[in-house]
């Protein structure tokens, strides 16, 4: 249970970090909070020969208002800081609601917002939340930078579009539209455990109260965040009545997800949870969009 040897760099600027990544390519790993990387190194599942530690890159630690009314989060911002930030609470309530579900306080004190997203664990909360919110991710390399939308960022099991010479530097959370609401729900055996299933819902209504936008994204049921596109299509343009929500939840469970079985839960049980959490999260999100409830 000890990591294999590696060469350690602690750059103080993103530019310097990118130079190390450009030089070492696939041999290097980025060390953010280390709350997922270090366990895999302790198990020697990961044996990077170079670690580029971002903990001294102060330019990556921030939460600030976006010009569009949203929020910009620096990739190295600690999860515990996001969890308690008033701007996040006001402008990104889905993120605010999801934060306490992420592991334990000791982990959130070290774990970073960008690290959680870049790690792309299919059981993690923030990848699903970022897809539900249509977050945009700023990725830098020495050659320049590019923006990627969250739904294009995750490409598979622990895999994203980030190239070895690139760095996720910022997450842009869009503003909440008028008449919009969101909800995060998950079922875990104990608080802080990996969720058996989790659901992030983000919805908006038009002037008549019909669904204008529905994003329902699950975690722990696939190789990454899984969007329930068919369920969303059913609701689009409809009044979100209890019957419509129930039908969408059933579609989500039967047609949108294909969960696996493991020691913690069978596929059938996960499918059942998808249905329940879809209904609960959509109901709460629509209620909030209508201004009902907290």
């Amino acid at each position: 249970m000890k990591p294999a040897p590696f060469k350690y760099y602690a750059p103080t600027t993103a530019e310097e970090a990118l130079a190390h990544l450009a030089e070492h390519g696939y041999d290097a790993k980025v060390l953010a909070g280390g709350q997922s990387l270090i366990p895999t190194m302790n198990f020697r599942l990961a044996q990077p020969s170079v670690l580029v530690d971002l903990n001294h890159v102060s330019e990556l630690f921030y939460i600030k208002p976006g010009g569009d009314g949203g929020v910009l989060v620096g990739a190295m911002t600690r999860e515990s800081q996001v969890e308690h930030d008033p701007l996040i609470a006001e402008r990104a309530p889905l993120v605010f609601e999801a934060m306490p579900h992420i592991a334990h306080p000791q982990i959130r004190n070290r774990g970073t917002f960008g690290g959680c997203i870049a790690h792309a664990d299919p059981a993690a909360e923030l990848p699903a939340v970022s897809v539900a919110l249509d977050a945009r991710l700023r990725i830098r390399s020495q050659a320049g930078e590019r923006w990627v939308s969250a739904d294009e960022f995750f490409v598979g099991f622990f895999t994203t579009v980030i190239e070895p010479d690139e760095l996720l530097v910022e997450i842009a959370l869009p503003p909440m539209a008028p008449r919009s609401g969101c909800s995060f729900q998950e079922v875990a055996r104990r608080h802080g455990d990996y969720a058996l299933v989790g659901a992030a819902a983000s919805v908006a209504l038009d002037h008549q109260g019909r669904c204008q936008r529905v994003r329902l994204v699950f975690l722990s049921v696939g190789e990454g965040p899984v969007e329930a596109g068919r369920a969303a299509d059913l609701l689009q343009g409809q009044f979100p009545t209890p019957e419509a929500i129930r039908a969408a939840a059933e579609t989500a469970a039967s047609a949108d997800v294909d969960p696996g079985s493991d020691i913690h839960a069978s596929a059938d049980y996960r499918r059942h949870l998808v249905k329940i959490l879809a209904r609960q999260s959509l109901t709460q999100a629509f209620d909030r969009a209508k201004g009902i409830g907290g």
Partner: protein
Amino acid sequence: MDNLMNVTVTVNGTPYERAVEPRLLLSDFLRHELGLTGTHVGCEHGVCGTCTILFDGQAVRSCLMFAIQADGHEVLTVEGLGSVDKLHPLQQAFRDAHALQCAFCTPGFLMTLVPFLEEKPNPTEEEIREAIAGNLCRCTGYQNIVEAVKLAAERMGA
């Protein structure tokens, strides 16, 4: 043992300087380099919580950090919490409420709960249980640990 790097870290108020391999975990640094064996090592992958320490005042898993990352920072371990003659109120409450049996997990619980009680001096039972969710105890069934936290909160608030 080439590739050594210098680390200067203040632990329980005392500055230490050592040359270590970058791969040395902070938990092992505390135990093997400094001889502070109060910080226990259980799972070494961030699940059991027994290696919890305060890093610049915040509870973290010392098995999920490298010692070199503590360079220039402040660490508090259970040795810095109280002494045999003068226990920290939380330690005294653990003793009085029988919140430990084998005690392997106790340092981790204490270091988790010290900042928790500073943040929430009057916690509810639900908040206490949530706070200790990242610390495993195989002896007590947690009941008396929760009781001890309530007792400590009561005494510390008094």
